[in-house]
């Protein structure tokens, strides 16, 4: 069974801090790892990583994957109160066909205080 473990489960920081969120995984026949931000309702897509060691970056957010050690990190620099959300990590196996179903972790609840 595919498994995703995120840490920490929750984190409280002050505006301007830098945070690192962790995601480790076990999946049969790995295809990709995805990060989502969940505010009030829908998970919003952030990044998809398929290759080890290549950093994906979008503004203050960046992510990198280590396929040998089976983990990924999501970095947020100069945090703002608008970054407060649950950050979800999900993996997709290379299953038969092209289902790309996602297995999610429990998420990291990030609270950024002013």
């Amino acid at each position, binding site marked *: 069974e595919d498994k995703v473990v995120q840490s920490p489960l929750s984190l409280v920081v002050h505006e301007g801090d830098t945070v690192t969120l962790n995601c480790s995984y076990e999946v049969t026949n790995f295809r990709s790892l995805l990060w989502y931000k969940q505010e009030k309702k829908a998970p919003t897509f952030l990044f*998809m990583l398929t290759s080890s060691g290549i950093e994906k970056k979008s503004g203050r957010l960046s992510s990198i994957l280590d396929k040998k050690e089976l983990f990924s990190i999501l970095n947020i620099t100069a945090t703002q109160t608008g970054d407060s959300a649950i950050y979800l990590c999900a993996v997709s196996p290379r299953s038969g066909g*092209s*289902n790309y179903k*996602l297995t*999610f972790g429990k998420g990291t609840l990030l609270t950024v205080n002013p």
Partner: protein
Amino acid sequence: EPEVTQTPSHQVTQMGQEVILRCVPISNHLYFYWYRQILGQKVEFLVSFYNNEISEKSEIFDDQFSVERPDGSNFTLKIRSTKLEDSAMYFCASRKGLAGNEQYFGPGTRLTVT
């Protein structure tokens, strides 16, 4: 920017009643998914759908559940006889396919079974 839409946003039903949750995926996407998130728990895969048929389903997706794409735009999830434990947030997601592997989620339908 195109987005996945879902209706209703909140549905309250009595145990044993049938419910239909509706989704309009992004128009040029080919793969469709339903996930659910019980309050305080992980997002869980229910079913994937491609080319007018189910491509994969989880153990949760038993005979009480069905999906349909009745026309070129809607994608529905039906629960025939709801149980208390079906109370959850149900998310629809779609994926472009080919080069686009990330899944985009709708805002969800909160189903409350009383």
